[in-house]
């Protein structure tokens, strides 16, 4: 077990290198010059610009820049921005809001998606199943920002149940509406996956065996079918939590939540490469860690892949 975890952590290194390299290269290729973006309409003297460029190694060849950056990352140093603030600090400052939003959304999604999916799967082919299908297709089809703006206007402005934007109310009130919007969109996919998986399992031979053993329908569903049906669902759930951390950008912008997404967007506008790459690297890391956690949980519910 420990050997497996260690091996997996070692496997993360090439993935991390590859992913950061691509992100770093893309940032490097971004049009515009970071120094002129910094100063705006009043250009600095040539000498000062040259000094800044040297201080930030901006004139070094791309590979040297990347190499320096990665050396820092492996020491836990994500570099500094143009105001000298450590990038790590900026990210950590913004991370709690994003984390609260993503976790709340994920838990809500879990409940909504599993309930609709299991219900649809058990009533496979009946009216309730068709209703669930229509619901999921509807919410998969409508773009997220439309739902977000609609919900913000209706519940935030019209009914006034929650603040339309901002995090002054704190958790949970400030997060409940944006999280619900994210959850409903993501729950549609989860519900469909759960339903399909359950329908497949309900046709399995071992459920016929369970009937031949004289077990009641309840026992067959709760004791034999659901755990098998959850095997693909768990993989999806774990990866989607990581995805939600990175995918909250639009929702954060609409609901004015000071999270990672907002920081990322403003840094791209300001050409602050260190922050963009820092956030992306962080998200890649989070994704890899969740991936590992999923694979370890997977063995708990499916003994066939136990390590």
């Amino acid at each position, binding site marked *: 077990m420990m050997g497996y975890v260690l091996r997996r952590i070692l496997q993360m290194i090439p993935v991390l290198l590859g992913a950061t390299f691509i992100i770093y290269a893309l940032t490097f290729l971004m049009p515009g010059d970071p120094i002129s973006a910094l100063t705006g309409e009043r250009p600095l003297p040539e000498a000062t610009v040259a000094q800044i460029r040297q201080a930030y190694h901006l004139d070094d060849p791309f590979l040297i820049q990347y190499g320096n950056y990665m050396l820092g990352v492996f020491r836990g140093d994500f570099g500094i921005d143009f105001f000298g603030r450590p990038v790590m600090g900026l990210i950590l400052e913004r991370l709690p809001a994003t984390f609260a939003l993503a976790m709340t959304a994920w838990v809500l999604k879990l409940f909504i998606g599993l309930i609709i999916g299991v219900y649809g799967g058990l009533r496979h082919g009946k009216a309730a199943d068709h209703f669930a299908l229509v619901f999921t297709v509807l919410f998969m089809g409508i773009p997220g920002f439309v739902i977000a703006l609609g919900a913000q206007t209706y519940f935030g402005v019209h009914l006034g149940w929650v603040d339309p934007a901002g995090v002054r109310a704190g958790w949970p009130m400030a997060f409940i509406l944006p999280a619900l919007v994210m959850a409903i969109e993501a729950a549609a996919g989860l519900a469909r996956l759960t339903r399909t998986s359950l329908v497949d399992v309900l046709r399995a031979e071992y459920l016929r*065996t369970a*009937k*031949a*053993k*004289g077990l009641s329908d309840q*026992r067959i569903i709760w004791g*034999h079918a659901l*755990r098998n049906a959850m095997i693909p669902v768990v993989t999806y759930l774990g990866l989607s939590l990581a995805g939600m951390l990175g995918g909250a950008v639009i929702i954060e912008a609409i609901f004015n939540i000071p999270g990672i997404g907002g920081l990322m967007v403003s840094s791209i506008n300001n050409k602050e490469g260190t922050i963009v790459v820092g956030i992306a690297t962080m998200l890649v890391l989070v994704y890899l860690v969740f991936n590992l956690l999923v694979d370890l949980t997977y063995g708990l519910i499916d*003994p066939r892949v136990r390590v």
Partner: protein
Amino acid sequence: MSNQTDAQQTPLLQVHDLRVEFSTSQGIATAINGVDLSVSAGQSLGILGESGSGKSVTARTIMGLLDTPPARVVGGQILLEGEDLLSLPSKVRRSLNGPRMAMVFQDALSALNPVHPVGRQIGELFRVHRGYSRAAAKRAAIELMDRVKIPAASSRVNDYPHQFSGGMRQRIVIAMALALDPQLLIADEPTTALDVTVQAQILALLKEQQVERNMGLVLITHDISVVREVTDHVAVMYAGRVVEQGPTAQVLSAPRHPYTRGLAESVASEELKGSRLPAIPGSPPDLLNLPMGCSFANRCWLATEECNGRVPTLTELGESRATACFHHEEVQPYAAHSR
């Protein structure tokens, strides 16, 4: 094993004129079209037939395991010690599975739940039907695994199905079926998925347990040699009907139905060495569209006008034999026939 006085008592299982249909996208398929069977305690009945003949559907109908829809039992009776299973409420009927009758499936790997240890799957029968504690159920499971000759049962009770070999998995399925000492055991192609050497062991185990417990055994197979080895009586099925039945040795050596004759002949033997293996020409009829007369008529060398006009019913021939053929007297005994 068979014993004439046994057969004259109320049989353990009687199936009368059972009819099952499946609705498919192309129409109604008649899977079972008036099946009659009878098994007594301590007797083993083989149901012999090719795929699509209705033998597995018959087994599932008896156990109440058909998916309805698409399947539908349209007529007949299934009597277990005189009690009609088809008239029982579904919950009552389900509760008979395990203590009164049990089933062994073809593919043990897919018949076992992959995420539960085997001991738990065997013990579940004791927990549900007899209210055993977890610990007592586990002890009972170990004991059963011992009885079906799984080596080191007590250390393997917590293993999962995928950790066993094919033969051992089938033993676990058998242990599960035998757990509550059922009166009737239905084995649906129990050895088809196994190696030949393992097949013999599993058949010997089934036979031994059947004799020891005085169970009624219904063994479904397409393999004549399995029927010959294990069963006292045999019912030959074709296109959803029983076309011939009687004591196994007699039916196989002196068939009274051309289909049985064809089956017996198509088995490779020493005397056929070097010559082409005889096969029955043609293929079974379309179950969506059964012919008006005998289903076998289009493949039969004895068929006449009469055969195409009406269905021959299963008729007693004496000596507990029966056949559904107008021309049964013309069917030559297998041994006397040569090419």
